[in-house]
């Protein structure tokens, strides 16, 4: 796994963001650098938001805070939350899927058509709809702490697509269960639990790993979409002042919030919404790299051998043909 370039590149991108995020906070504190205007020859040439330059590689926001700093500070929230959502989802859905695929096989059809109706509800919409009571600040302020809200959000987002993932696992398990070696194990007296543990799980480990990667990617996308609806990770600070209401704000510097609170500036200051989305894209890209690398590390030999044998047989066949032709030519000459 660690020898696969794809996996290593993907892993190092994610690790860079995570470690960088903690190191940044440790060195420079949890408030990014603020620049209110740029001076050139004693005159102010540019006010906030400052466009990207050497001092602020990604520019600054409308209050002069360095965008790169904000992104680095927020990286840990977004990435860890996405990983946690996907992990929790798999932890619930995989055992559920196994139970559905083995113990409750008679009810599988019926349950899967119920879960199928989830396929018609747009995920983002569902998430936004369900999370609004948790994340949107009521007029009297939040009654819960930020960590409680993040926890709730992670749990709810994990639960949202548990049915779909569980059905996927169940169908896969049901397919494998009809294989002969499982039948043999059953004949020898293996119980269902043993079959799950010793036969189904090892067979499906790779599929489950890939499924996990897909869930992480999906979660990143849903976070970004929620950001667009101003539902931010850890809650949205809403100003209920009737006259001078501030726009909804994110409490942490997580990426969805950075994007969601600035996408109206797309034409005026394109770096403000583009940079967070680009970072989300990079994180998704890193995960997909890791998945590809993992898959390649798990079955490289099979592929290479197949190709090699295929080529070899063709080469041999050609040689055979050549030999026959030569023999024929020789015979003709004689």
């Amino acid at each position, binding site marked *: 796994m660690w020898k696969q370039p794809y996996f290593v590149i993907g892993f190092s991108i994610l690790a860079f963001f995570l470690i960088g995020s903690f190191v940044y906070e440790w060195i420079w504190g949890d408030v990014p650098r603020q620049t209110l205007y740029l001076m050139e020859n004693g005159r102010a040439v540019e006010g906030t938001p400052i466009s990207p330059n050497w001092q602020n590689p990604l520019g600054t926001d409308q209050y002069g805070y360095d965008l790169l700093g904000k992104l680095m500070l927020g990286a840990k929230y977004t990435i860890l939350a996405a990983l946690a959502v996907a992990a929790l989802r798999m932890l619930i859905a995989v055992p559920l899927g196994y139970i559905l695929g083995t113990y409750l096989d008679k009810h599988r059809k019926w349950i899967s058509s119920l879960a199928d109706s989830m396929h018609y*509800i*747009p995920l983002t*919409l569902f998430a936004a709809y369900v999370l609004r*009571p*948790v994340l949107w600040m009521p007029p009297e302020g939040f009654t819960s702490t930020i960590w409680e809200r993040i926890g709730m959000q992670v749990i709810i987002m994990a639960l949202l697509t548990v049915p779909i993932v569980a059905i996927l696992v169940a169908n896969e398990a049901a397919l494998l269960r009809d294989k002969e070696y499982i039948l043999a194990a059953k004949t020898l007296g293996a119980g269902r639990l043993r079959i799950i543990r010793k036969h189904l799980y090892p067979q499906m480990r790779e599929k489950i790993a890939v499924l996990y990667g897909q869930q992480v990617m999906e979660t990143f996308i849903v976070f970004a979409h929620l950001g667009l609806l101003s539902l931010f990770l850890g809650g949205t600070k809403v100003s209920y002042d009737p006259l001078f209401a501030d726009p909804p704000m994110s409490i942490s510097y997580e990426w969805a919030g950075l994007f969601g609170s600035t996408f109206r500036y*797309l034409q005026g200051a394109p770096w403000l919404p583009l940079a967070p*989305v680009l970072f*989300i894209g990079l994180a998704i890209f890193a995960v997909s790299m890791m998945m*590809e690398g993992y898959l390649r590390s798990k079955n490289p030999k099979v592929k290479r051998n197949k190709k090699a044998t295929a080529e070899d047989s063709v080469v041999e066949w050609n040689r055979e043909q050549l030999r026959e032709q030569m023999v024929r030519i020789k015979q003709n000459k004689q």
Partner: protein
Amino acid sequence: MRFLLKFLIGIAGIVLAGSLPVLIAGWLNAEWRWKDYFDSIRITLEELWPLGEIAFFNYRAQQSMPLFPNIFEYIIYSLQILFLALLAAVVVSLVLTVITMLLSERARERVKVSLYFLESVPDLLIIMLAQLAVVLFFKQTGILISKIAVVGDDRIYMLPVLCLAILPTIQLYRLSMLTFQEEERQMYVDLARALGFSKVYIILVHMFRNAIISVFFQSKKTMWFMLSNLFVLELMFNLPGMMLFLSDNMHPLGFLVAVCSFFLPMFFLYSFGEWYFVRRMRGKEAV
């Protein structure tokens, strides 16, 4: 009969999901509000009855609007964009697949890997880049390719459909590449080749028919993904569509109506498709 049952189960799932926020608000205060939950479901179902009398508040017009015909127009517009994009994605991806299948093995692998990584581009990035590109093009040349946002009740089609279609095209392209390659290993392809049919003929006539079935079943997942994208798209372009309407009406009834407006056409489309393909496959077995 089984079709009807499936339909009812689907509707029941949506109704149950529609009142979930009540339960979750209860969790925040560490209690189970089952009674409120079922009350909310009951109220939603009661409100549903005289279908013509359902009305929603529209923030854009600053007044209440009846479902028919006003809101219904929104629904039609959203569905138009969705299905146009789906159609475009399917056609483009199939054409590209057929072309790529004619290439050599190595080139195909390369295409597949790059498609795999292209899939990780977030939809938001595509929409924003498209909007920026149109504006930049306008500034440079003075030609407005397409409007980038809607004011009032205007309708725009080209740019939203294009933005919505890009990612599904990439997904379907990769998936259909995989199915076509799987299909290529089948015996009948070898037989057809041995009989001297050209590669193009085999792909277009023989493999296409078989591969299209699994592409159809895969497209359901793509459709799900597109629904989320449509939501974002309508927000970014300020389109007068169903999703934008829903974001103003986040209550169980609004949720039910909005989701049903997608559920009904998609459910019929996929049920019909499944029925058709299954019948065709059965016919083949009998022969």
